[in-house]
């Protein structure tokens, strides 16, 4: 408790409040703007890590994460354009509500639900983080190796529709992770001295998330304007409150655990929350026509999962979403390595960050309820300026990483790769996680083998490791079973043929 109070003391300094406000505003703005998500924004803002203190920068990034989640729901409701896969479900009922003149209520239940879920999620995080911390410190290199392997496999296998493409992304990422000096020799440097320290991970993040995305959108610009539904200040009536509070709590219960799981993400819990609310609702006839429960539940699930994501990130150094991956890059550029020892060694920083999550959440509510009509105005920015601006800041971010034009060339090459990945439906998350975890995977394996003097059986010598391998086996077995069942049901359709190829 004292630690938390210290955390609040650190989070509530004027500078840090300023950074939290900045983060929340930026996050909401980019959530609203088409074509920019929180992962891209944090990637573009990585240069601030070169001089802003770690605490302030991380507080700002947390604000962007939470703000982006909320901003995405605004456009889902007003425009029916879910920018992130996590707000697809919100658009289902939210846009219907807006069309029947209940935009203000939809925005309000989304904002307050996000606040409730974010706050409960942060409380859970604060309760769980100190208990998980000491547990993971005891884990040896073999367990850590197994956990990372599990994270890589599950992110690759569970997310996205095509397993083949998931693995392509993962191994491309691992290959990039190989670049640099290894045992005193250059590895995969293509003869460039600039690469001997490894690929600058900031450049990879900016290229894949920002440049690749901007190029992809630029090549497929939508030309017809969408119809925005005008909305005033969000508010809710008494009956809206009574219909919303239970979905908020249930949504939080779905969201947090899934966010904390490797590869859990926000898609599954928002979907589960929607299905649950539809089943439990006293007004099932309203579903599909704009039921407030269908906005309240998924929005809460969405934000709770964002809080949940931070648990494995802080305790194990495992990013489970794109935004968490980029925030991890930010940690690394401070020389901080989230993982077993991180929580105990950087207590002050961790608690300031946790406390600032409360601050960010409260700010989000205070700022966004009155500002909703202002956010809608952002949508009038002409696309040429929006995407030219992204290219401008991507270039700036990559250049300032090491002040070399070489990195800009690398940025362009990787940006084209990012474009190609979107063209061929190869997911970007496994790649970025592969780049981050690849070198650490090798490091842990090397350490484990050094201790055991080359005996590979050490890898399954710890209980935590065995559990990880069992879970991995279960995941793979489950997939194979699902595939076989699918094949047996109908062997002639092209669908199953495709599934087969994907595994």
């Amino acid at each position: 408790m004292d630690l938390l109070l210290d955390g609040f003391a650190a989070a509530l300094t004027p500078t840090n409040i300023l950074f939290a406000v900045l983060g929340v505003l930026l996050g909401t703005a980019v959530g609203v703007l088409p074509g920019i998500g929180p992962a891209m924004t944090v990637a573009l803002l990585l240069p601030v890590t070169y001089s802003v203190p770690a605490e302030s920068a991380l507080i700002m990034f947390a604000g962007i994460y939470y703000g982006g989640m909320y901003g995405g729901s605004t456009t889902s409701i007003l425009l029916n354009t879910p920018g992130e896969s996590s707000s697809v479900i919100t658009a289902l009922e939210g846009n219907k509500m807006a069309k029947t003149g209940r935009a203000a209520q939809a925005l309000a239940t989304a904002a307050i639900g996000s606040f409730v879920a974010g706050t409960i999620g942060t409380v859970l995080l604060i309760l769980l983080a100190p208990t998980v911390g000491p547990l993971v410190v005891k884990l040896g290199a073999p367990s850590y190796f197994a956990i990372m392997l599990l994270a890589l496999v599950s992110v690759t296998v569970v997310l996205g529709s095509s397993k083949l493409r998931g693995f392509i992304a993962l191994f491309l990422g691992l290959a990039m992770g190989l670049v640099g000096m290894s045992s005193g020799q250059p590895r995969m440097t293509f003869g460039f001295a600039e690469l001997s320290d490894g690929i600058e991970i900031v450049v990879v993040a900016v290229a894949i998330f920002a440049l690749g995305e901007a190029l992809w959108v630029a090549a497929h610009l939508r030309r017809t304007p969408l119809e925005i539904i005008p909305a005033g200040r969000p508010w809710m009536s008494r009956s809206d409150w009574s219909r919303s509070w239970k979905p908020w709590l249930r949504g939080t219960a779905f969201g947090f655990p899934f966010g904390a799981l490797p590869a859990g993400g926000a898609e599954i819990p928002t979907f589960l929350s929607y299905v649950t609310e539809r089943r439990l609702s006293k007004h099932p006839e309203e579903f599909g026509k704009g039921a407030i429960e269908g906005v309240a539940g998924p929005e809460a699930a969405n934000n709770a999962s964002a809080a949940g994501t931070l648990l494995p990130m802080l305790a194990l150094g495992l990013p489970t979403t794109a935004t968490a991956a980029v925030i991890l890059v930010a940690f690394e550029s401070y020389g901080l390595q989230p993982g077993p020892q991180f929580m105990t060694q950087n207590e002050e920083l961790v608690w300031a960050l946790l406390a600032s999550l409360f601050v960010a959440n409260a700010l989000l509510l205070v700022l966004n309820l009155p500002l909703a009509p202002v956010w809608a105005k952002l949508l009038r920015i002409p696309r040429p300026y929006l995407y030219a601006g992204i290219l401008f800041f991507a270039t700036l971010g990559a250049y300032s990483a090491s002040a070399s034009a070489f990195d800009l060339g690398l940025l362009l090459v990787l940006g084209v790769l990012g474009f190609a990945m979107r063209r061929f439906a190869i997911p970007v998350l496994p790649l970025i996680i592969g780049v981050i975890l690849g070198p650490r995977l090798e490091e842990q394996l090397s350490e484990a083998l050094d201790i055991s003097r080359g005996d590979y059986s050490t890898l399954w010598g710890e209980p935590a490791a065995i559990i990880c391998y069992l879970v991995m086996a279960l995941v793979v077995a489950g997939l194979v079973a699902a595939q076989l069942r699918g094949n047996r049901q109908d062997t002639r359709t092209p669908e199953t043929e495709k599934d087969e190829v994907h595994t």
Partner: protein
Amino acid sequence: MSIVIAYSPDIYGRAALEHALAEARLRETSLVVVNVTRGDSLVDSHYAHEDEVQLVMDRLKAEGVDATVRRDVVPDIADAVLDVAAEEHATLIVVGVRHRSAVGKMLLGSVAQRVILDASCPVLAVKPS
């Protein structure tokens, strides 16, 4: 032979609409409502909703004026208005004008100004009262 009006769903467009309507009844010609967008932003407040266009058309019909509507995504709004005017052999173009400073004109350009300068028929520039 018809009157072309550059319409936008705001006070300027509505002022232009009133005057265009009066002129169309006076001259007993048809009216072509042009509402186009460059489509370069996700939301364009000058591009009317389907519902609003329907309301305008209903109103014109009720007033007994033969009216058609042109809605499209175009590279340049002033050019689009002028093209429609040429196609329809317009006898008059009606535009709403707003006050804009010299810097504003330089940065934002002015559709009304270009229509007024480049049109081959008379242009009626209307200010909202």
